[in-house]
């Protein structure tokens, strides 16, 4: 008999070893009987403790709970839940690189304990306290002498190919991961990469020649004896992949990070006042979580995260996301996650039934949204009317801190410099009227030394 308030996650169908389900708002994983031998090996060999201690594998507890599908169940485990599930097409270059290196390190450790990773999916990695963490406890299986690494191709497609494309062609090519849920095809990667990359040993063997071998044998359908790989060969493979990934580097247009983004028209006094107001609003609303939309390098996101509020800093600029991530790692900021997002085209639901990887909206709602210096970009650069913006924001948050930047502001004037001003409705009065359809205005404060106004709003129906 099916329990009430229980749901198997739509993304959890590929692996016969088990599946994830949510019951009474708690996340569980059913381990199936077919996986018993491998699960017991993971727990008994010491690999689980080792990886959990190194914060590389999600910790879990075995619980005494009625299984979701009893006739195939071996155990039910309750993994530590991740605050926000993110996807590789939302990560910066270094986030994807760190996730790749973590996967290889886990495989190396697994081999030492007599196990191996059967999956090397980027979707199995999430970020916790700034560090990549494997969240699929059922990714391991017992290593049999002579086995090759079954996840080699997946690793190349999920990690190496997008990283090489980002490093050697264009940082925006990580968006290919949004199209190819199984990872970027190696033949496509090989055809896009510059010719000189054939002289790069790691890229040559793991991408170019690998793709050629795939094409050559794609139609052979010959059964292969997969037990011809020595243990040293496996370690050699992992070592070579690690070296190749480590050598991939990216820095935006050779600029220095320190001065990369300094495009604001605030005076020091105005900036300090804005920070003070945000802190006051946070104190009033007391959110448990924040999404900062258009976070830039996370200056305002940190006002929340430094107070222990879990905050996701979204930005459309890969350089901003990269810089924010590097700083979170450097300063061990556990409550801040920086992610790439084009708010005018946010991550959609992809995969089977459009449900395997959920859309941004489906990963909400969040307690509070910051929309700071964002409104004019959405209305003037993207022709979005106020009511559509208010409707969207009301769908993803309860509380809102939003900044109104009037037409007279120099930043808005920049946007209007080469545009016909067709934005007659872009006035503070209409803004307040339209947003009042969805939100109550709790605070309204002009920011000193500027023409801007900051608002604290609460959704009407909360």
């Amino acid at each position: 008999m099916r329990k009430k308030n229980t749901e198997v996650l739509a993304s959890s169908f590929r692996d016969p070893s088990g599946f994830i389900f949510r019951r009474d708002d708690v996340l569980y994983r059913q381990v199936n009987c077919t996986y018993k031998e491998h699960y017991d090996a993971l727990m008994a060999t010491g690999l689980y403790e080792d990886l959990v201690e190194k914060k590389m594998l999600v910790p879990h507890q075995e619980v005494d709970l009625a299984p979701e599908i009893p006739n195939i169940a071996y155990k039910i485990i309750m993994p530590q839940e991740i605050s926000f599930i993110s996807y590789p097409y939302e990560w910066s270059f270094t986030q994807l690189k760190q996730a790749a290196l973590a996967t290889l390190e886990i495989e190396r450790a697994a081999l030492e304990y007599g196990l191996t990773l059967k999956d090397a999916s980027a979707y199995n990695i999430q970020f916790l306290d700034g560090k990549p963490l494997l969240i699929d406890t059922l990714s391991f299986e017992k290593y049999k002498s002579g086995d090759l690494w079954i996840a080699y191709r997946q690793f190349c497609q999920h990690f190496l190919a997008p990283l090489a494309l980002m490093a050697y062609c264009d940082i925006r090519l990580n968006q290919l991961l949004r199209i190819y849920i199984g990872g970027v095809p190696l033949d496509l990667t090989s055809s896009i990469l510059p010719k000189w990359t054939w002289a790069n040993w790691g890229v040559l063997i793991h991408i170019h020649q690998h793709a050629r071998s795939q094409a050559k044998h794609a139609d052979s359908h010959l059964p292969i004896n997969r037990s011809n790989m020595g243990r040293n060969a496996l370690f050699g493979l992992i070592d070579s992949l690690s070296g190749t990934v480590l050598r991939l580097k990216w820095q935006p247009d050779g600029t220095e990070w320190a001065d990369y983004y300094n495009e604001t028209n605030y005076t020091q006094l105005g900036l300090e006042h804005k920070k003070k107001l945000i802190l006051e609003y946070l104190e009033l609303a007391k959110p448990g979580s924040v999404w900062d939309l258009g976070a830039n390098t996370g200056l305002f996101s940190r006002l929340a995260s430094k107070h222990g509020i879990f905050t996701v800093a979204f930005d459309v600029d890969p350089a901003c996301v990269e810089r924010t991530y590097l700083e979170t790692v450097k300063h061990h900021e556990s409550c801040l996650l920086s992610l790439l997002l084009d708010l005018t085209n946010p991550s959609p639901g992809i995969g089977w039934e459009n449900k395997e990887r959920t859309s941004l909206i489906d990963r909400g709602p969040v307690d509070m949204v910051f929309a700071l210096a964002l409104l004019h970009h959405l209305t003037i650069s993207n022709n979005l009317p106020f009511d559509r913006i208010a409707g969207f924001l009301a769908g993803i948050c309860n509380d809102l801190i939003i900044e109104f930047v009037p037409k007279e502001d120099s930043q808005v004037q920049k946007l209007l410099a080469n545009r016909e001003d067709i934005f007659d409705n872009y006035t503070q009065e209409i803004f307040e009227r339209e947003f009042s359809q969805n939100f109550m205005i709790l605070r309204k404060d002009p920011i000193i030394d500027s023409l801007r106004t900051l608002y604290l709003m609460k959704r009407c129906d909360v």
Partner: protein
Amino acid sequence: MKKRYLFLLLVVLLVTQPASAYLDPGTGSFIWQMLIGIVLGTAFMLKMYWQKTKSSFKKLIYHEEKKH
């Protein structure tokens, strides 16, 4: 006319690509992994030996320096 159709059929048969739904990139990946495994495994072994030799040499020098 018949000859023309026959020629076209021949062209179609010769040029037709295998149905992509049945193409398996996994086979080539396995074969490739086994091939490079030999090279990478040997290189890894040599690297390990070299590192061991280097560290033994360093230890030896360290002990010699300590003696003096």
